[in-house]
């Protein structure tokens, strides 16, 4: 059995990846929406998003909607695979 994913397993990062994994493959989520769903502070979110980005699990896109800056986040294909592996590990741990 493959081991747990240490990057994903941390509580806030697990919630972030769970939410992003529930989106469609081409769907991005706005930073503000993600923050509200997680109920985390800006600083806390930034720390965990950076860790996930460094691992190649998420992609952060910054652009403008009209004149308003917008930050959106999505799970990468690698992130989705890592999340699936981690969930499989958790289920196997419970069943075994």
């Amino acid at each position: 059995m493959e081991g747990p994913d240490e990057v994903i397993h941390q509580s806030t990062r697990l919630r972030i990846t769970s939410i992003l994994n529930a989106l469609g493959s081409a769907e991005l989520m706005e930073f503000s929406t993600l923050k509200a769903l997680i109920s985390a502070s800006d600083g806390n979110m930034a720390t965990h998003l950076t860790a996930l980005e460094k691992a190649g699990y998420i992609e952060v896109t910054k652009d403008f909607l009209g004149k308003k800056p917008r930050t959106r986040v999505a799970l990468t294909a690698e992130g989705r695979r890592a999340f699936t592996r981690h969930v499989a590990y958790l289920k196997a741990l419970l069943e075994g």
Partner: protein
Amino acid sequence: MQISRDEAAQALSDIHDARSRVDKLHGYGDAAPFLILWGMVWLVANSTTQFVPALADMAWLVGILTGTTLTIVLASVQAKRRGARDISQAGQSAQVAMRMGVSQGVVLAFFVAMVTIVWPLDARQFNALISLFWACTYMGVGVWIGMRLFWIGAVTAVAILFGFLHIEQYYSLWMGIAGGGSLIAGGLWLRRV
């Protein structure tokens, strides 16, 4: 890194909660434009009925036709988007949509039959009945999608009943502002995370 069985169970429960939150977010996001659209129809058609009674029938006809056309357009756009969200569930979504459509048809048929049985109704009674019918539909759908929609339906239903029982001269205006207004405000509330 070691994970206990309790931690694994907690993590899986967190993952399930996150999925539910996203589903609710999608449900609210999908429902919001319909509420705003029909709130506008109620507002405009009822206000016209109040202030220009001669144009009331025309206002309702145009309002209902416009509302229905835009509902169909919005629903197909959303169905396509849902398919793109998760291709593996697209077939299942189509099946669910068909069942929901048939269920709605059954309820609508009941409403038409009921109105036929209790006819004649005056314009005020008919307006209150059909408006209550939709408010209760939102409550019923809200039980499945999320409780915000349930409460929007409940507030709208209470506003309709209050207007029917207590407001005489400005009943149509009340229905436009309180009924239509609560749908519009509710739609905007659904768009907030």
